[in-house]
C-alpha cells in the first residue's frame, strides 16, 4: 500500500479499561496500528487478549463498564472518539460494518432476512423506497452467493444454515458499501468446509469492493488465507506486527512462535506433534509488571519480569516487543533479524 495516501484507519496508543467491582481491567493497554484503504489486517490472539474489545471500541459499541481511557482512533483523518451520538450512528454500519462470531444468534429470529437486510440500508438512506431497498437487498444476497433470492428474502433466519446465515450477515454488513469491515471471528462457529467458503467469499468481495478488513481471529491458518498483515495480541498489547509472510516465516516474539508451533500443518511429518503453549493466560486484574508473556515464556530473562520491552523493528513494517530482540539488536543484529 502507498504510504503517502491518507490512511483508512489509524489507531494510536488505544487504551480500553473495564471498571469492574474487583478493580480496573486493562483490556487493551495501548495499541497502535494503521490500515490503508483496501488492506486486510488480521488481529490474532487467544481469548481475553483484547482483540474484540479493540474492535468494539472502533465501532463505539463498548458495553459499560468498558471505557476508552486513552489514545486515538482516526478514520479517514476524522477522530472517531470525538464523534457525538448522531455522528456515531451515522458512522456505524455506513462507513464501518461489523460481522460477528456467531451467525446462529446474530440475526433476529422473528424478522425475515429481507426485512433485516433492507433495514440496514434504510437506516442510512432514509429516502429510499421499500421497493428499492428490497431490490438492493436481493442484489446483495446474490452477491454473497445465495440462490433463489426472491424466496430467501421472505424466509426467517431459522430456515438458513450457519454458513448461509453468515453470508447473510456479510451481505448485511456490505449493503451500505462501507470502507471498512470488521470481522470478529466470522468463521469460528462454522465447520471447516464452510469456513473455507466464507473466507473465499470475503476475499472475493474484498477484491470487488476494495474495502479494508480487520479480521479478528485466533486461527493463524485463517490469517494466512486472507490477510496482508497481522497484529498479534497478547494480554491487551500488540506484541508483534508485520506482513503476513514476516509473521509466518520470521516470527520475532516467542508467543508468535508458540502460536505457529501449536498450529496443525499439512506438511508436518506424521510423528510431529503440536506443541502447546504452556501456562495459562494472564489474570487481567493483576497483570504482571514487565512483559505479560514472561511467565509462560521459555526464554524468560530477569528483565522480562520487570520491564515491558520496547518495539524493535525487525524489518520493513515488522516489529516486535521482546527483550530477546532488543538484546540481539544491541549485539549487532544477528539471528533472525536480517533486515
Amino acid at each position, binding site marked *: 500500500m502507498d504510504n503517502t495516501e491518507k490512511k483508512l484507519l489509524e489507531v494510536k496508543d488505544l487504551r480500553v479499561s473495564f471498571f469492574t467491582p474487583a478493580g480496573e481491567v486493562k483490556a487493551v493497554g495501548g495499541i497502535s496500528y494503521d490500515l490503508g484503504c483496501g488492506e486486510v489486517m488480521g488481529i490474532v490472539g487467544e481469548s481475553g487478549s483484547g482483540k474484540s474489545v479493540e474492535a468494539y471500541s472502533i465501532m463505539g459499541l463498548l458495553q459499560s463498564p468498558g471505557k476508552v481511557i486513552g489514545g486515538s482512533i482516526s478514520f479517514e483523518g476524522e477522530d472517531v472518539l470525538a464523534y457525538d451520538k448522531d455522528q456515531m450512528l451515522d458512522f456505524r*454500519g455506513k462507513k464501518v460494518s*461489523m460481522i*460477528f462470531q*456467531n451467525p446462529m*444468534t446474530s440475526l433476529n*429470529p*422473528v424478522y425475515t432476512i429481507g426485512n433485516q437486510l433492507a433495514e440496514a440500508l434504510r437506516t442510512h438512506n432514509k429516502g429510499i423506497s421499500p421497493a428499492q431497498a428490497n431490490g438492493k437487498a436481493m442484489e446483495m444476497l446474490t452477491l454473497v452467493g445465495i440462490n433463489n433470492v426472491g424466496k430467501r428474502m421472505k424466509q*426467517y433466519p431459522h430456515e438458513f444454515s450457519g454458513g448461509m446465515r453468515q453470508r447473510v*450477515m456479510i451481505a448485511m454488513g456490505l449493503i451500505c458499501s462501507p470502507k471498512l469491515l470488521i470481522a470478529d471471528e466470522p468463521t469460528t462457529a462454522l465447520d471447516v468446509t464452510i469456513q473455507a467458503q466464507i473466507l473465499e467469499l470475503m476475499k472475493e468481495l474484498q477484491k470487488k469492493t476494495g474495502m479494508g478488513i480487520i479480521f479478528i481471529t485466533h486461527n493463524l491458518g485463517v490469517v494466512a488465507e486472507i490477510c496482508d498483515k497481522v497484529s498479534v495480541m497478547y494480554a491487551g498489547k500488540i506484541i508483534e506486527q508485520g506482513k503476513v509472510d514476516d509473521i509466518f516465516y520470521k516470527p520475532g516474539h516467542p508467543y508468535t512462535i508458540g502460536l505457529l508451533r501449536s498450529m496443525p500443518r499439512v506438511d508436518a511429518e506424521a510423528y510431529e506433534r503440536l506443541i502447546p503453549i504452556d501456562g495459562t493466560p494472564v489474570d487481567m486484574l493483576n497483570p504482571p509488571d514487565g512483559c505479560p508473556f514472561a511467565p509462560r515464556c521459555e526464554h524468560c530473562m530477569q528483565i522480562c519480569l520487570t520491564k515491558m520491552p520496547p518495539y524493535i523493528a525487525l524489518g520493513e513494517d515488522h516489529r516486535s516487543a521482546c527483550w530477546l530482540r532488543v538484546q540481539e539488536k544491541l549485539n549487532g543484529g544477528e539471528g533472525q533479524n536480517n533486515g
Partner: protein
Amino acid sequence: MAKYTLGRLGMSLVTLLLIATLTFLLMNSVPGGPWLSEKTPSPETIKALNEKYGLDKPMIVQLGMYFENLIQGDMGVSLKMQKNRPVVDIITEMFPVSAKIGFFAILWAALAGVALGAIAAYQRGAWVDSLLRIVATIGISMPSFVVASLLLTTFAGSNASLRFFPTIFDAALGVKAYILPCFALGVYPMCYIARQTRSAMLDALGQDYIKTAKAKGMKNTPIIFKHALRNALIPVITYLGPQIAFTFCGGFVVETVFSVPGLGRYFIQSISNRDYPIIMGTTIFLAAFIIVMNFLADFLYRVVDPRISIGQGGK
C-alpha cells in the same frame, strides 16, 4: 393445521368433561344443600324438591343427565338464587358486566405493563427501574381486597372532596362507574406483566442480534421496540391467555367490594348457596373460556415468533 385444530378440539372436550365431572363430585361431597336457609324446610318438602330437580337420583345418573342436557345447550335452572331461571340466561346476563370491566382492566394492564417493563429494562439500574420495581412488587404482593378497599375508601368514601366515583356500582353512570373496578382489577396483572416484560426484555437486549442492530447504526428506539420487544413478548402472551379469561369472568373480590353485579361475584355466591346448576354452569363456562384463550395464545406465538410452528415440528 386443520388436523391440529381438530386434535386440540378433542383434547379440549376431554378436558372440559373432566373438569365438569370433578366439579360435580366435589360439589356434591360438600355438606349442605341448596334447600338450607334460615328457615329449614320440612323433610317432606326437601324430599319433594329433590325429586322435582332430580337430586334424589344416584349421582352417576344425575351427571349423565347433566351432560345430556348440556349437549343440547341446557345448563339447567337455578335452584335457589334466582329460582327456576335458566343458568344460561343468568350467565348471558352477568358475563357482559364482568367482561366489560375485565376488558378494560386487562387492556390497561397489558399496555402499561409492557411499556413500563420495557422502559425499566432499558433503564436498568436507573431510578426509573428501581421505582418501577418497588411499585411492581407492592402491586403484586398487595391482595386485591386491599387495593380495592383502599381505592373505594379513598375515591368513593366519606371524604367528599375526593369522592369522584360512586360507592356502589351503577352501570347507568357510564365511564365513571367503571374506572375504579377496572383499575383495581388491572393492578395485579399490570405489575405481573411489567415484571415479566422487564426480565424478558433484559434477556432480549443481551442477545447477539441486538449487537447486530447496533452495528447497523440503528437508534435505540427502533432497537428496543422492533428488535427486543417482539422477542420479549412470548412470556407475556403465555400469561395473558388464561389471565384474560380470568379477568373477563370477573374478579370476585373486586366485584364484591364495588358491588358489581358480575359473574365472578355470582359464582362465589352460588358456591355458598350450593346452587349446583350455577356452580356447574359458571365453572364449565370459565374452563371453556380459558381453553379458548390458551388456544388463541398458542396461535399468537406463531404470529410473533415464526420459529414456532403449529402442529408439525418444523417444516
